[in-house]
């Protein structure tokens, strides 16, 4: 039985960026087992960079431990094999491949024989994917691609799911459904989630805790319901 007090991801003094342009200036945060943690912030605050630093897509320094194992110097494919799945900004679908191939690719690191049954489960959750399973993934709508991206990420049965701005470019109804689904996945499978979002209200609605990022440092943090009611946050991010 997972203990919510176990730390899945522990990050200390994270620094990183793109060559000469350093974006992250020493971040400290953690995600507990089974939690949904949200990172909020305006454009350019470093939210996407933070996720990319965790999944090993950029050069970074600092201490990053995944269930006690240091991954701060590991490369992306190895980090994936340790149980991290990252849904990048913009979905990262493989447009020329079929929907089914996209899902299969998600299970690339798996060596067991339950891949097919997992895929069937996802087709049950998102029937539209089953309808289009042989179509080019690039022909799907934005919302459908987002579903595909999430399903693909979960095909690897990760213990930590990183979601980068899942609401970006999607209609509000779709986004609402999407976030309901995230909450359900978290509840049913206990998958730990770290979500980066600009849509603070929606994100905080499904989160346990949140951090607010500003110019590469953590501006404030706290339980989700506290952040929602915080006046400063409301003014800055909720436009209230």
């Amino acid at each position, binding site marked *: 039985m997972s203990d919510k007090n176990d730390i899945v991801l522990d990050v200390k003094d994270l620094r990183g960026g793109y060559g000469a342009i350093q974006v992250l200036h020493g971040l400290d945060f953690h995600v507990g087992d089974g939690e949904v943690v949200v990172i909020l912030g305006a454009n350019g605050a470093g939210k996407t960079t933070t996720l990319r630093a965790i*999944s090993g*897509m950029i050069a970074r320094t600092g201490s990053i431990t995944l269930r006690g194992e240091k991954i701060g110097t590991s490369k*992306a*494919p190895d980090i*994936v*094999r340790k149980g991290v*799945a*990252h849904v*990048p900004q913009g979905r*990262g*679908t*493989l*447009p*020329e*491949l079929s929907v089914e*191939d996209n899902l*299969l*690719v*998600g299970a*690339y*690191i798996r060596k067991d024989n339950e891949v097919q049954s997992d895929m069937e489960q996802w087709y049950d959750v998102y029937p539209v994917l089953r309808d289009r399973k042989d179509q080019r993934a690039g022909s799907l709508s934005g919302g459908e691609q987002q579903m595909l991206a999430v399903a*693909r990420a979960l095909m*690897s049965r990760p213990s930590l799911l990183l979601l980068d701005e899942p609401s970006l470019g999607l209609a509000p109804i779709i986004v609402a459904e999407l976030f309901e689904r995230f909450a359900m996945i978290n509840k049913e499978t206990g998958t730990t989630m770290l979500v980066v979002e600009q849509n603070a209200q929606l994100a905080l609605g499904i989160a346990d805790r949140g951090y607010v990022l500003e110019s590469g440092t953590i501006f404030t943090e706290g339980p989700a319901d506290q952040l929602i009611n915080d006046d400063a946050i409301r003014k800055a991010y909720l436009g209230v």
Partner: protein
Amino acid sequence: MELFINRIFDGLSNGATYALLAMALVMIFKATTLINFAQGEFAMFGGFIVMVLVLEQGLPVWVGVILGMLLSAVLAAGIERTLIRPFDPSDHLPLVIITLGLFLAINAIAGIVWRFDPRAFPEMFPSGNAFTWGNASLSWYTVFTLVTIAVTAGLLTLLLNKTKTGLAFRAVSSNLESSELVGIKVGPTLQFGWAIAAAVGTLGVAVFVASPVRQLEPQVMVTGLIFAVSAAALGGLDSLGGAIVGGLAIGLVQSILVPYLGIPSELSLFAAVVVLMLVLLFKPAGLFGTAAVERV
């Protein structure tokens, strides 16, 4: 009329070689958007390996061909690991220069080791004609070259669509970052692409010089590359099926249009280049390529 039919068959069998070489170019282009200017030289070198294995080591022809393909695949994999992988895949300039350096170096090595006199290549296919009607004849050579492309295309398709490595290759060709994010190791996947390309290219040269009228020598693919590039561009640089269509089309252009338009045969190369220019002018994505062509 019968001359015309003969010409078609000639064009098809020439086209088969261009198709195989074009498929090699497409494999690398799909994965890296790079044109391997040394592809012809890889193939030529592989052809010499086959010749050595069969004529000097006494192996049966097809064993030699398969082994030669394997060896050239291994060499190409080695080249990818040492000379290509250290560079950022999105920065084309150093990579193009490396392929040009390989072009010069491999051509020179072949010239040093094997000299420049043309050599007879072992026959891969039964000689003589499969069918004859009047003056028209369909040689076994033509039949088998076409069978070879079909089989190669089939095997490649199976490899790419039904295996895990093939899936990884298609993923990397589609989106490098997303591929890394699902745990695909990009380097080894690209290496696989280079190896397959080299093997297919070697097969292409072998088929080309197995013809009773041709011989193997180090310069054999220097102009052959141009035909292959035109074929690949015509078919669409990232489409394997397009490479086959393009290769056969260029072969046909060479054998039909050139004589009928009264263009001297030296100009068949010119014809291929004209096709290339026209494709780039009017449909840069080629017949079957994905139109991810960014206009300036």
